[in-house]
């Protein structure tokens, strides 16, 4: 990222930059690691030493920002490390990723965060923004040193993977968030209602004899957190919203000017609980050995079609601010087991666009908005997620109709736990630039030196 780059012109693409309300055909010029501007160079001969990328037929957007990446570093590097997470990110058009703190040890003090940032600086091609733990060791017993973590550069606080069950602690965390102006990101799952579960509660769980968790386990926790945000005036960010009831609560809270933001995963936009059947979302009349697909197991679980439509509607109307991948790498052994034994989560960085646009059919302009503007506003960082002159030269180039096969051999992530594995999907990221440097190019001949 620090390497000095030659100026680059990304030619002839459809440039979509929601931060400026831009949707136009043009050339994006990157100089000295920052955006120079969006221009119409036509056939102009480029100066010596410049390089160009032909984006004809493609969409040129600000690099995506993921609010929700599990980096697995330190402590679980066999699942993912900064280099492989970075590879996965650039394959998916992400140029900034926010690292969730459920590591071993947890990101609950400045030295752990500092160590991670040092590693990322040398191993990651993308910008990594750390998220600090809300509580010490993520145990939910006492607050982590939030000011110390903020000084160390965290962009928010979360015990993600586990909820803050104590309303008292959650209230204090939200109180601190007002001073720090950083969001509290609570994993909304009321473990008091259901302690152990396998999938969404409903007809599929009943059929398969799996233990279900109802929508209310999520919405009860969100309702509590919204009330706590109301009395603290704190900043609440709700990760991976999965139910229609949750959406209603957030919509109402926003209408009451409570400081709440929300994100949805690409898989909750695209897939339903029926993917547990292992038949591409269809219901088989006879269960085959494909059933109980552990690659469709995550927290929160895939929900019903009604919920899927509700989160799409919320993404469209702005109730949900951002698409966050919840990129959750797991080793093969964590998924090659019974459904009940299997770990929660799927990788998400490389398939985000294909799930959101290719499968869920989200309009590309909206998807870009929720992958750039939405997250940058939550992060409060004007230098990323935009192609305004002077912004970081982070760019994603999208081939919306391009199909690709999700294969172990080509995934950048160290883990391959996605229900799309082996399947052909639409919408690929053709190239990615970070700080004006091309870090991913799937076009093969896309880069031409002037």
């Amino acid at each position, binding site marked *: 990222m620090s390497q000095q780059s030659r100026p680059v012109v990304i030619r002839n693409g459809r440039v979509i930059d929601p931060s400026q309300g831009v949707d136009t055909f043009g050339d994006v010029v990157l100089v000295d690691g920052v955006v120079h501007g969006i221009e119409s160079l036509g056939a102009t001969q480029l100066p010596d030493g410049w390089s160009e990328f032909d984006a004809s037929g493609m969409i040129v957007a600000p690099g995506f920002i993921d609010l929700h990446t599990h980096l697995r570093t330190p402590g679980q590097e066999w699942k993912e490390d900064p280099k492989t997470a970075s590879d996965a990110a650039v394959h998916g058009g992400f140029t900034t990723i926010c690292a969730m703190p459920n590591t071993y040890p947890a990101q609950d003090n400045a030295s752990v965060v500092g160590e991670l940032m040092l590693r990322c600086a040398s191993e990651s091609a993308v910008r990594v923004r750390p998220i600090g733990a809300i509580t010490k060791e993520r145990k939910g017993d006492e607050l982590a040193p939030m000011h110390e973590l903020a000084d160390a550069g965290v962009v928010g606080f979360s015990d993600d993977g586990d909820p803050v069950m104590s309303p008292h602690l959650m209230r204090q965390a939200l109180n601190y968030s007002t001073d720090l102006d950083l969001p509290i990101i609570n994993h909304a799952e009321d473990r008091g209602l259901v302690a152990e579960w396998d999938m969404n509660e409903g007809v599929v769980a009943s059929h398969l*004899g799996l233990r*279900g968790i109802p929508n209310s386990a999520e919405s009860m926790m969100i309702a509590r957190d919204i009330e706590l945000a109301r009395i603290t005036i704190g900043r609440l960010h709700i990760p991976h919203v999965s139910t229609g009831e949750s959406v209603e609560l957030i919509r109402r809270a926003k209408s009451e000017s409570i400081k709440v933001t929300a994100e949805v995963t690409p898989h909750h936009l*695209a897939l*339903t609980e029926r993917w547990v059947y292992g038949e*591409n979302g*269809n219901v088989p009349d006879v269960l085959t050995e494909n059933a109980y697909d552990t690659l469709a197991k995550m927290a929160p679980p895939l929900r019903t079609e009604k919920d899927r439509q509700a989160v799409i509607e919320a993404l469209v109307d702005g109730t949900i601010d951002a698409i966050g991948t919840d990129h959750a790498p797991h080793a093969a*052994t964590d998924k090659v087991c019974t459904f009940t034994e299997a770990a929660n989560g799927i990788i998400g960085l490389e398939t985000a666009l294909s799930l959101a646009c290719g499968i869920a059919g989200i309009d590309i302009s909206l998807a870009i908005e929720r992958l750039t503007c939405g997250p940058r506003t939550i992060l409060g960082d004007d230098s990323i997620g935009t192609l305004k002159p002077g912004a970081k030269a982070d760019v994603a180039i999208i081939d919306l109709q391009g199909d690709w096969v999700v294969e172990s051999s080509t995934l950048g992530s160290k883990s391959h736990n996605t229900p799309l594995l082996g399947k052909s999907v639409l919408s690929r990221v053709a190239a990615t630039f970070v700080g004006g440097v091309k870090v991913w190019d799937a076009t093969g001949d896309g880069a031409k030196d002037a």
Partner: protein
Amino acid sequence: MTLTLTNVSQQDVTAVSADSKHLLDVDSLTPEQIHKLRERASEFRQLRASRPFKSDSLRGGSIYTLFFENSTRTRVSFEHAGKALGADVINIAASTSSVSKGESLLNTVLTLDAMGIDALIVRHPHSGSPHFIARHVDAVVINAGDGAHGHPTQALLDVLTLQDHLGNLQGAKLALVGDILYSRVARSDIIAFRKMGVEISIAGPPTLLPQDWAPGENSLGVPDTEVTVHESVEDAIRDADAIMCLRLQLERQTSGLLPDVNEYSRVWGINAQRLALAKPGAPVMHPGPMNEGLEISTDIAHGSLSLVENQVENGVAMRMAVLEHYCGPTREIL
């Protein structure tokens, strides 16, 4: 095929080939196949009556039973059935295998598969474990009970037992009473009996029914699973041709799903008074093991209308038919 909005998330049920190598659940069997298994089991039952009966139809075959849960009748009847057909039957209890050293389920079954076995009969506390195993082994997988999901040979022997008693299952009304939510017998029985044209009435504590069910018509979201849920056990039993009393899993009380076992007995237990609501002579079945005096009163459990011992006897015969079909050279009998 590229996955797009048009071919994902469809609401339709898709047909999948029912000709399965494995017996993961009864859903893979057609009514005709169930009939043929039933007829074959009847033959075996008669042959067994003239002891000693020993066939060599599975001679040289090796059948492993791999049980991760305790069992008396299922494991023993599979062993009995396999030996009666001449197969070598080897029993593995998870508690005495390398599972107790932490070996994963995958590596356990791969190890057994590498020994060149013909069939793996599996009981496991996790729903879908036979499906998982079937993805990874060459051997035929027979489900001997997986979590709360299925228990296909139990359902088949229940069909055999009730058909023998009633003579005809088409249009018969079966009351299924008790813990449906956690019962693998209930799920497989629902599918098997629906395939046989049986109407199913259900009653049980609301905490032990699927949470998406309400009084009235319900299903498991796929064909052959339609049931009627009643608000009281009396309503479910009234005019029934037969009653299937499910086992109350006593650990449900400690997990807060039942206030009191005595209350369960009072509200949902099968006793003479309730049985009198059914059609005259309607039999009572129970998959065992029974909690006598709880879900079923002792006089009913051992009375003239009880089919419990028939179920056990039919268990061996039906498992012979199943093993012959799935493991034997005479697979074409179906």
